């Protein structure tokens, strides 16, 4: 046996360093995937144990498969590095993207896990076989495994203390992908003599390294883009329906509903929103018997309505059956809605609100004493239709004599042009709007409009015999007062064929922060 040369020592050191990097990267990808799984799918205990189990068994599979790799070990080792670099490096970004665009992110998540796990499992046996020349087995195993476990320790310390808080998931995975590609690049240079096609491998490693490094630099922007889909609190339920993604988070007593990442309510203060939405309209009409709710598939508006003994029938029209089913059946959510969606007085219709009202009128359906329009904000053209003059005329035609409509109308403070556009549009549709607003801490200053065919003053007294937490007679009167810096604006009417409101809304919110919307 020839004595080891200086360059042999250098190569051995590089290989041991590779073990360290490979082990660190391997555990980092596992942690990233497990964190993503609990972010996106909820129930962190289940997600972490599933991810660890699947990842370790994939590593086992990789180790077992390593016996079939018999030739060109150096080439294969670099190939494996590059696969891990690409798949592992892009894993967090791919999962964010998949979350927004796939009906279920699980298959993607577990595919990434299996690929990375298998490749990481392949790596250590390959490395040991590459390093075995000139070493005794006992020394080799001791060194490799020691570096492997040190790498794991490094990863488990780095991830929660540095990576997650300072880099975030997307950039952390790009960083470790770049490190993997760096190892591949270094090995391709150092082991040139042992490689079948050294130039090709070197070029490939360089390409992957540059690509991942660029993504790492861009990662900040990508992360912010993906941040919209992230939630402050642990995810309880996350479900993608045919129309939207519904996410429920819970932190202590605070349960929140997000539609497509946008907050719909927080259980801490939703009573302020829903009391303000419902009871002024009921007080305005008197003792309504028939009520139509457009939107409000969470059943919270219906809960407030059903507190009124006069109400005999509520028709609730919400587009998404997934939403109404979730809030009717999920045991954690029914206490919030007070079981309103199962109340015998209420009928759920899963349909587009405009189409439903049009067909209701074509059928000659009975008019409604109160119509509650509680739709997501007009952030796109298909929602903007439901704030158009045409729609409000349709609604006016569905009101009983003396009937009252109430509309959630975005924030008069955050989106003033949007809010007053809704008010002007109602007026142009032949209704008499009475604008009002309430402070809902999780949304800010939120606006509503009462509308009726005849002209009348705002209601002065809250309905009697109904348990309320927010509204009193004094508070009710104050809701109809706007301060001097929130005066009515002279803005255009939202027509079905121009949808100026969607433009106002975009501009209003872009002027503040794209994250503070309440929309669907």
């Amino acid at each position, binding site marked *: 046996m020839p004595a080891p040369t200086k360059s042999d020592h250098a190569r051995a050191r590089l290989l041991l360093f590779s073990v360290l990097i490979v082990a660190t990267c391997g555990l980092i990808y596992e942690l990233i995937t497990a964190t993503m799984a609990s972010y996106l799918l909820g129930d962190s205990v289940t997600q972490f144990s599933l991810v660890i189990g699947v990842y370790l068994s994939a590593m086992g599979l990789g180790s077992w498969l390593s016996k079939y790799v018999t030739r060109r070990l150096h080439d294969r080792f670099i190939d494996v590095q590059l696969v891990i670099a690409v798949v592992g490096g892009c894993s967090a970004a791919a999962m964010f993207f998949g979350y927004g665009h796939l009906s279920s992110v699980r298959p993607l998540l577990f595919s990434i896990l299996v690929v990375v796990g298998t490749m990481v499992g392949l790596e250590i046996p390959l490395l040991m076989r590459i390093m075995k020349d000139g070493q005794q087995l006992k020394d080799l195993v001791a060194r490799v495994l020691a570096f492997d476990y040190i790498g794991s320790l490094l990863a488990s310390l780095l991830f929660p203390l540095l990576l997650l808080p300072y880099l975030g998931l997307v950039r952390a995975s790009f960083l470790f992908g770049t490190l993997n590609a760096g190892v591949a690049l270094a090995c391709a240079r150092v082991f040139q003599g042992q490689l079948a096609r050294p130039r090709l491998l070197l070029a490939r490693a360089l390409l992957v390294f540059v690509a991942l490094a660029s993504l790492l630099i861009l990662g900040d922007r990508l992360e912010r883009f993906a941040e919209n889909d992230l939630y402050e609190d642990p995810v309880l339920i996350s479900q993608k329906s045919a129309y939207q993604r519904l996410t429920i988070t819970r932190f202590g007593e605070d349960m929140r509903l997000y539609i497509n990442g946008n907050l719909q309510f927080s259980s801490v203060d939703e009573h302020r929103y829903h009391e303000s939405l419902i009871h002024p309209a009921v007080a305005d009409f008197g003792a309504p018997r028939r009520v139509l709710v457009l939107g409000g598939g969470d059943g919270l508006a219906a809960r407030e309505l059903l507190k009124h003994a006069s109400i005999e029938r509520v028709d609730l029209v919400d587009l998404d059956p997934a939403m109404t089913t979730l809030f009717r059946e999920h045991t954690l959510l029914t206490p919030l809605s007070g079981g309103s969606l199962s109340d015998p007085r209420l009928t759920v219709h*899963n349909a587009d609100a405009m189409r439903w009202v049009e067909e209701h009128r074509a059928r000659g359906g009975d008019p409604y004493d109160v119509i509650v329009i509680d739709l997501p904000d007009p952030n796109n*053209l*298909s929602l903007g239709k439901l704030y158009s003059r045409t729609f409000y*005329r349709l609604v006016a*035609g569905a009101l009983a004599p003396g009937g009252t409509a109430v509309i959630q109308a975005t924030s008069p403070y955050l989106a003033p042009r949007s809010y007053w556009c809704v008010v002007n549009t109602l007026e142009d549709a*032949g209704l008499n709007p009475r604008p009002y607003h309430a402070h809902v801490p999780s949304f800010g200053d939120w606006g509503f409009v009462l509308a009726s065919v005849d002209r009348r003053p705002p209601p002065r007294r809250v309905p009697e015999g109904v348990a309320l937490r927010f509204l009193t007679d004094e508070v009710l009167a104050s809701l109809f007062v706007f301060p001097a810096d929130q005066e009515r604006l002279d803005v255009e009417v939202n027509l079905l064929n*121009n949808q100026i409101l969607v433009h106002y809304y975009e501009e209003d919110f872009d002027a503040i922060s794209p994250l503070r919307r309440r929309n669907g």
Partner: protein
Amino acid sequence: MHDFRVLELEDALGGTARGGELPRSRHPLGAHYLPRPEPRFHALERLLEDLGVIIGRDPAGRAEYAPSTIVAASVERHQLDRIWYAGISPEHGATPAEQAEAERWYAHLRALDREGPDGRRQFTLPSWRASAALRELDAISMRDYLQRLGVTSWRLRWEIDYACRDDYGCTLEQTSAYAALHHFLARGYDEDRPRPLLAWPDGNAELTRRMAARLGYIAAAPVDPHARVRTRAAVVSIDPDRGALRAVLRGEDPEDPGELVELSARAILWAAPRFVLPYVLTARGRDPLAGHRGPAMSYSPWLVASVELLDRPGGIGSPLAWDNVPVQRDNLGYVVATHGEDRSDTRPGAVVTYYEPLTAETPAVATRRAELLAGDLSRWSDHVVRQLAAMHPGIERQVTRVSVTRWGHAMIRPVPGLLFGDALARARAPIGVVRPCATDVTGLALFEQAFYSGVEAAEEALARLGRGAASMIP
């Protein structure tokens, strides 16, 4: 009035307002929208009320339209240098001089939007009820008129040319100045609020279907020889003096030679293209058009094709609209049949309908018609896909089906001198009991023109039967 028959040559009712169906959606074969009528068009509002398009009236008496019939935003976009922009005016990159010219043009239109000295609007529908004040503008082409106005901006000229091709199938060189201005002013000029358009997945076929349903016509029903509305009925002769009409009624079997029937009528409304009439008149010499000299009635050929796509077309810039128009191209772009689908419809894909009038000067237009009708269908479907791919590179991979319709005589061409010349007066004139009243005899292929032409002819027929009443024509 109950004792009447409707005889239709084709298998389906509707003429150029027929529709087709692809697996993903229905689509138009031709006419595909109707501008929401002005309240002064009472008769048209009444029709739309009868057809369930107007669903009620607000306290002020304004008609309330079924929301699903109104084309919702985004209504139109245009493509200029590969980028899509909202609206139809190619304003992006306009110089201050071009902007000023556009302002002058709009001011000019505003100034023309008024009544003439005879108390009638200078432009209205139907066109024959307009003031006589500006009729001399029918004698010159729109090109000459724009030259006289000093309009040189290619942007404006394209927009006006597009309007002429879209409404009449002629370029601005081929369209009379009056007809071109009529496009902008007939319904009143309103630049602030875009006029709502009424449309359905298969275009105006929905209107003809509802009309037919009111007459008790059921498309799928077995042939009833006594039915009031009869398709596959080829009128072969009309004796205009005796009101004797002979027609061959066919069954569904294409081999069926049919049955010759004779009908006797006190009034006959000829709602087929006017150029067919001489061939069925027993006395051809009775046709007042026979000896006519001057601008003849000519027709523009149109290529219409509906294309089923796996995904909705996108593009850089303004998002997909109902009407999508490429600037500076021979074709008019496409409308989206699936545009009106509501939020509850989550099916992927779309059906778009492509429109292209084949324009040429008067004698050459016949050559283009022959070219259109002679070519193999697949050649035209390839052409359509190529044109769509010019707007949306790679769209050919999204295409699952193409349905091509070739219209040899899609629209009457309002060339200079036609609208208020002798030819149309002669074309409309009664021949015995026969009164020609199809869109072509009005000079402008517009829904409202066809409607009022039909109403006028029907009122005349009722008067002939002794049941005359006050006219519904504004």
